[in-house]
């Protein structure tokens, strides 16, 4: 697999390139406002979320600091405060706020944060898995059979069989929950590993092979976890007799 480093460098360059005020054409020195005319500036679309929210590119984050920064930036950009400004400024405020909200939501959630970091560092978040990972193959196969049997028993209104398979599915669920917990523990270990290397060598190219090893392992793990989550959601929906909810 190819982990190109171009993305990261390109992002930094583009971020630097944003330097002319849309309104007075003077050089923008402040972060979000023009130093000359004090008009709000559109955030570069290439600005990465970590930089935007003032965080180092680490996976263990200070959630209180993240929230404080989010609130602070919301007070700077929210459309509420641009009601009496020009149409252009209102549009910029809307765009900046939307980007801020996405950035905050992404970094707040550890899984989304990791997927985002993978995307930044290695180009793509994860492989989309359509077949079960090797070490889950047997269990998933058995689960599918139980699910099938449960569905046909309940549609045939066979109370005994339904109860039997419900009990079985509940056991399956518990087992898969444990598997997920194990994955999460492993993921936490990878977070720490990444953070250690990244803190030691924040430059994109430094310790690249080590970084890529961690990223590769993380990508694999996240793909398996996503697969497991969708199986679990399906299982919960079947047990509750409701409709599959696609949220994770």
């Amino acid at each position, binding site marked *: 697999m190819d982990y190109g480093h171009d993305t990261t460098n390109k992002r930094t360059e583009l971020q630097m390139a944003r330097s002319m005020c849309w309104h007075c054409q003077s050089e923008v020195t402040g972060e979000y406002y023009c130093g000359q005319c004090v008009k709000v500036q559109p955030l570069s679309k290439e600005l990465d979320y970590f930089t935007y929210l003032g965080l180092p590119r680490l996976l263990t984050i200070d959630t209180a600091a993240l929230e404080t920064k989010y609130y602070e930036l*919301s007070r700077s950009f929210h*459309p*509420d*405060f641009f009601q009496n400004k020009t149409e252009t400024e209102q549009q910029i405020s809307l765009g900046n706020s939307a980007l801020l909200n996405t950035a905050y*939501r992404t970094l707040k959630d550890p899984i989304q944060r990791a997927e985002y970091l993978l995307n930044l560092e290695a180009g793509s978040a994860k492989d989309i898995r359509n077949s079960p990972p090797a070490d889950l193959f047997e269990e998933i196969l058995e689960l599918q059979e139980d699910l099938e049997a449960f569905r046909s028993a309940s549609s045939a209104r066979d109370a005994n069989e339904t109860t039997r398979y419900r009990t079985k599915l509940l056991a399956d669920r518990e087992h898969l929950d444990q598997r997920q917990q194990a994955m999460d523990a492993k993921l936490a270990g990878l977070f720490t590993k990444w953070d250690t290397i990244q803190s030691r060598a924040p430059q994109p190219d430094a310790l690249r092979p080590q970084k890529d090893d961690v990223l590769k392992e993380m990508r694999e793990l996240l793909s398996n976890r996503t697969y497991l989550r969708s199986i679990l959601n399906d299982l919960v929906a079947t047990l509750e007799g409701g409709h599959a909810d*696609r949220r994770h």
Partner: protein
Amino acid sequence: MRIVGIDLGTTNSLIAYMDGQTPRVIAGRGDRAMVPSVVAMTDNGLIVGDPAKEHLVRNPAHTVYSVKRFMGKGLADVADELKYFPYTLSEQGGVIRIKVGEKTYSPPQISAMILKELKQRAEVVLHEEISKAVITVPAYFNDSQRQATKDAGTIAGLDVVRIINEPTAAALAYGLQQRTQGTIAVYDLGGGTFDISILKLKDGIFEVLSTNGNTHLGGDDFDHVVAEVILKDVRAKHSLDLEKYDEAMQAVRLEAERTKICLSDEQTATAVIDLPDGTGTYRKDFSRDQLEALTGELVERTLGPCRQALKDAGLQPSDIDEVILVGGSTRMPLVRRRVQALFSKVPHSELNPDEVVALGAAVQAGILSGGTQGMLLLDVTPLSLGIETIGGVMSTLIRRNTTIPSSTKEMFTTYADGQTGVDIHILQGERELVKDNRSLARFRLKVPPLPAGVPRIEVTFLIDANGILNVTARDIRTKQSQSLEVKPSYGLTDDEVERMIGDSFKFAADDLKARQLIEARTEADAILTATDKALKRGNHLIRAEELATIRAALSALEAAKKTDDHRAIRARIAETEQATHHLAEVLMDDSLKQALQNKKLSELP
């Protein structure tokens, strides 16, 4: 420029403003701040509010209530509750149309009449023209319902600077007035809708964590349950089917509401109905226990959304610091008990649950105008937004409970060589299949004819701070943006709204003029016929010159009737009455004489 806050409710509406740093509701005549959301189109013109409510029983076919239930909906959506609505509904372009007399109105037009009344009320009290407003909607309102509300404002001549959610508005009022902090749950059960919102209040930031609800569950439904019992009982005891009488149905509905409200304070209450055709009076005693047994299931239906909202916020009931009650239906002791049991907290209702939403709307108006500082509301979109993909499956673009404004970009291309358009169907909802979700709108992307897969059109879906979707498209190759004609599935088109704005100004004046003309002509016809009859019977009883005066008056009235001037008709009617006054007296005497002659003396009183 002042911005007012408006709570456009199912049952009642209110308008509020910021008096310095304090939000205040504006009271009308008799110090009542609540304006019943009822519109009556009477012979004497358009009536809104309390006086219109009186017309519900007297003239149900011309009196529209609970119109909020129809906002942003098609006819099929409300099929099961038409029984109580005495007016004829139809559908045009995916929008319900309400037929009142000879005219049909869309729900936003009716809502606009209520908004205009509130606007005028504020103008009288504040001595200035009101043109900007924040209007509240149920948090669980979908895009179509929000857009319909915005349209109503536009038709009423208001610039709707922001649509905000009712429970969050309530939170703003509590945050400002009661200095509430921490994680709070707002339970809002109104006249027609239910919302639950979980918020985090910290240092002036009001961050909504999750929201859920049911836009078709409220006080109206409680009334219907009680009304059903009355209807059934009347059928059993009097063999009378009240459903056949529009007037009686409204009387039952209103009496059910009154009884329900009464039982919030009392242990027993009596519903009293005048039966139609003077067949007597019906009475039925209700106890609070009875009401609670009848409505228990409805209250239960609010708890599912509460649990889901907690789950979506990643919280347990014990994580909630405060519970706030909003909406008139939270006065019911049963509701309070259930909410208290769910959250294990005594809920708050320090601020009047009928007024708190309007107060919050005023606070948001204060924030927008810059007068209220340090506060910021970060709200969420209540429903997932997506587009239709192959196989009738919805692909989610923006998930529910995402903080707004929020945007996402999607790239579209073609499947066939030379294809010049891509059809996009926008949906809202949580289900897998397109058919189980709500269709919002459709539009067609224009694509230059190129080999399949070559065109690259980037579409941006943006939900703004009002929770309303905006769609823009850009050709990546040419960097050209294209304008989209988004056709709403359940909404008025821009042209229709434009036309309705014009109509709304004309309506008030035209309606009155037309009605006065019709009335004057009808009255003229009655007088002409009556005088004709009288002359046949009595021309021999009056002198020739008197007869000539009457004939002259009659032809003048005939002539006036052909004009459009109701005042002239009225004047000729008055003259004719004057001219025939003596004739009428003479006839009266004459018929009395005849009556006496035809009767035996003993039969006289």
